């Protein structure tokens, strides 16, 4: 670090980079902070892209901070793509040719959609959905689409299908697995979502894989062929088979550097980092989707964390470390995530594997209407709660964070389950039915303290 003001440059204005910048500024009023993005002038919520297409919001509504916020907090913003990084000289080059120096460099470059080398994947009308530019391209193609094919049964796939349905465009949804997102969801949950997808008139094709994409004479999509040989005419193919760290420009930069005999950034699938988000090069850090931990954080956590929440936590942690004399290693707490499958909300806390693990058991309850379900996973012997999946039922994060961290038994969890209910007022709470299901399975009776009439009238949950 030099003696003058420290200059922190962050590449990427997504949730990780922006969270880091905000927290550095809160704790350190002197450092210069600069965020560079090629995608947008301002931070926006990537998870809200689908709502722009569906007409629920405009782009401006997806910006979590008003435009004056950045200047007020002295966070400088530059729009541009970084093309060259010189780690030895601590300098970078933008596509515009502009060069600048940094003292601390933070790589928060996010992800890019996967494509697995299918014939025709470069055609017009074939794309993923990750960036603002992807959305713009989708909008541009839309008037020509009579049918869209979405490939890949995951979170972005179902979003894309929902987006097209909102415009009454027929969608065929190709899912390689036996059920929707069943690499993550246990079978019952996945099947519930299968049924909901069909209810929305989406042509769901399970155990169907893409073989190739067909082109017309202008180089646009004409249709797809499945591995079973079926041809489906379409004008759009959405490739939503996961994302990978967005590090291609770092790879080519490494090649340049190694030609000059300079040391390069260590990359694997992502940018390799320690628990302190340090790369192999001093004063260069990586956070968010693009970072890959050298060492596993926990048995149930992946080395590349690609969700909004982890991006935010990475940003918080690095900001703390950059402004503290006692840096702390990243220690995520109880896992949590959420999504919305068309009309059905999904929340998960703790560890719920897609198939039962040795020594654990679970109870699954599904409402007869097929729209609400909950799974509680616990240790067989001790009945300690390990994780929960909820569909169509909002649960209180704080409740399950505590229950899982402290290892509450099923009896303790179930007798307090009404406190975990986060559904809006007057909504049915399936608490009783879940307790009954558990009692039926295990023969253990669960008693629950009754809420007094007065407490119910004033709407208190205690």
């Amino acid at each position: 670090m030099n003696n003058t003001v420290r200059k922190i440059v962050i590449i990427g204005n997504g949730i990780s980079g922006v969270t880091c910048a905000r927290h550095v500024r809160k704790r350190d009023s002197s450092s210069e902070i600069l965020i560079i993005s090629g995608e947008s002038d301002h931070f926006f919520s990537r998870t809200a892209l689908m709502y722009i297409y569906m007409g629920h919001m405009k782009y401006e509504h997806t910006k979590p901070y008003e435009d004056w916020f950045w200047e007020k907090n002295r966070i400088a913003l530059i729009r541009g793509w970084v093309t060259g990084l010189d780690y030895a000289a601590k300098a970078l080059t933008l596509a515009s040719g502009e060069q600048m120096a940094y003292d601390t460099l933070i790589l928060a470059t996010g992800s890019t959609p996967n494509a697995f080398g299918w014939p025709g994947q470069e055609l017009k009308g074939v794309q993923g959905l990750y960036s603002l530019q992807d959305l713009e391209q989708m909008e541009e193609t839309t008037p020509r689409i009579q049918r869209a094919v979405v490939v890949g049964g995951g979170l972005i796939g179902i979003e894309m299908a929902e987006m097209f349905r909102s415009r009454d465009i027929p969608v065929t949804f190709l899912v390689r697995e036996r059920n929707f997102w069943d690499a993550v969801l246990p079978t019952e949950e996945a099947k519930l979502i299968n049924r909901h997808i069909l209810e929305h008139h989406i042509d769901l094709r399970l155990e169907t894989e893409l073989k190739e994409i067909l082109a017309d004479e202008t180089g646009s999509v004409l249709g797809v062929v499945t591995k079973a040989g079926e041809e489906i005419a379409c004008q759009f193919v959405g490739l939503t088979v996961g994302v990978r760290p967005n590090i291609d420009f770092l790879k080519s930069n490494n090649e340049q550097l190694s030609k000059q005999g300079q040391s390069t950034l260590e990359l694997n699938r992502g940018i390799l980092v320690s628990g302190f988000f340090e790369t192999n090069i001093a004063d260069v850090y990586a956070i968010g989707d693009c970072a890959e931990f050298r060492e596993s954080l926990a048995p149930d956590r992946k080395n590349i964390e690609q969700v909004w929440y982890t991006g935010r936590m990475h940003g918080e942690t690095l900001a703390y470390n950059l402004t503290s004399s006692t840096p702390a290693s990243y220690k995520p707490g109880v896992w949590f995530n959420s999504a919305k499958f068309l009309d059905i909300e999904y929340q998960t806390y703790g560890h719920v594997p897609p198939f039962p693990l040795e020594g654990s058991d679970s109870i699954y309850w599904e409402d007869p209407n097929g729209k609400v379900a909950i799974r509680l996973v616990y240790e067989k012997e001790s009945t300690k709660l390990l994780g929960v999946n909820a569909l169509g039922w909002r649960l209180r994060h704080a409740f399950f964070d505590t229950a899982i961290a402290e290892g509450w038994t099923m009896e303790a969890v179930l007798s307090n389950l009404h406190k975990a209910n986060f559904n809006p007022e007057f909504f049915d709470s399936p608490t009783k039915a879940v307790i009954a299901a558990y009692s039926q399975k295990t023969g253990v009776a669960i008693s629950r303290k009754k809420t007094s009439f007065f407490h119910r009238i004033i709407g208190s949950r205690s």
Partner: protein
Amino acid sequence: MRKIQVLGIVVFLIGLIAFSLIPFIGYYQLEESTVRANVKDIHEEQLVSVLSPMYGQRYSSNFRFIADFNDHFNSYNDALKENQEWDNVIWDDYGFVLTKAASMGPVTEHPYLFLLLSIALAVAGGLLYILPMHRKEPNGIKHDGIYFSSMKSRGLIGIITGTYLILFYIVLYWFPEYLTNLVLMVDPLSMALSGNPASQWFLYGFIYTLAIVVMGIRMFRKYKGNAYQTIRTASVMFFQLAFAFLIPEILVLFNMPWHDFKNIWPLDYSFFFEYRIDGMVSSGALGMFMLVWGILLIVVGVPLFTYFYGKRWYCSWVCGCGGLAETLGDPYRQLSDKSLKAWKVERYLVHGVLVFAVVMTVMTIANYFTGFGLLGNATNQVHSIYGFMIGSMFAGVIGTGFYPLMGNRVWCRFGCPLAAYLGIVQRFKSRFRITTNGGQCISCGNCSTYCEMGIDVRWYAQRGQNIVRASCVGCGVCSAVCPRGVLKLENGEETGRVNEFPIIIGNNTVTLKN
């Protein structure tokens, strides 16, 4: 289904066009006996002679009739004013009653037919459009295409609708004599309810109530499966229909003062005005009950209910202005300004109006008890300034006319003095809050976008902070539209309601203050 809905729009538009044209049909003829029957005794002789040139003349339009009437009436008054004969000047407004009494023609003869052709047709068309909405669709958020809709995103149709509403309010408040045909149309209904002929306010109350009921049914369709929205909408429909529309008319039938039991000072800014107090005091036990009930609501009802439930118990469950905003205004909720600047303006304006209302009322009461010695004329001046600027201009013209331009809660947010009072209680002493669910927010912006009060809900949710804001009316839509189940309106312990430290969970490395 689609065809029925298109038919509904066509039928609605026919009704609306009929409604807009009816004021201009028929003819007008004034007779001496009409004048005698419709003016106060003290003005009778003067007016009979002033208006005598008009007798027996048949006017083919209300414009000509009103122009002629104003000519005679104003030149009489102007002459008196010039000679400073202030006591003889007629300050009463006879334009509306005499135009109404002079109106002849088809509407007078067939009021039901015209009621059927206009308002009934519009209601039928509205229902044809609304009832098939979202049939065969699963429950869920129905916001597809809102920002592609010209009506709902300040497009041309929205601007035209806003302009129409603004014009309607201007005519209703300041030129009601042009609406006499519409009022005649609802005369039989008013006679049946209260035994009195209709005024423009009866017409307005009737349309207002119908709007809440019909658009309330739309809410049932749009938010099907959402119990909170359904019950809340049923509540505002009930309070409007029973408390604001039927009960006051029935009171009049029994020679009681017109009284809306759920209206609370200072929204009901004239509650302490001399004529209201006199009306209540002179109406026996029920009149006294009105007075005591009204005062109890102000000093006990508002603080107590707001402590337990937040201001929503009134603003989005009971209030008539809120009722219209939540039903007719629902399609425009996303148009409210969410900027910090708007919040600053809001705080000055809404509390300014509250101060104005309080000062005016203190003046009025002081005046009442000092026997109108000290502040007699000044109080009347203040009353009419408030009535014009706040009661008519702000609450009516801007409050509702600007629905399609600035969202459905312009009045409630920037102008309502009762909302300001409720808000102060809600902010500082209440069990109500919108709880943020740990760290689940993804900053998508649906909550802020659909907040009709212009609260940047996301600002709080994304930093794991509960939402405790004076302006929140507890409509529950932020919670409904949240795709990740982050927001819950609830009443609970006061401890931890306002949390300075975030409740973002999931990162055990450090706890950072947001």
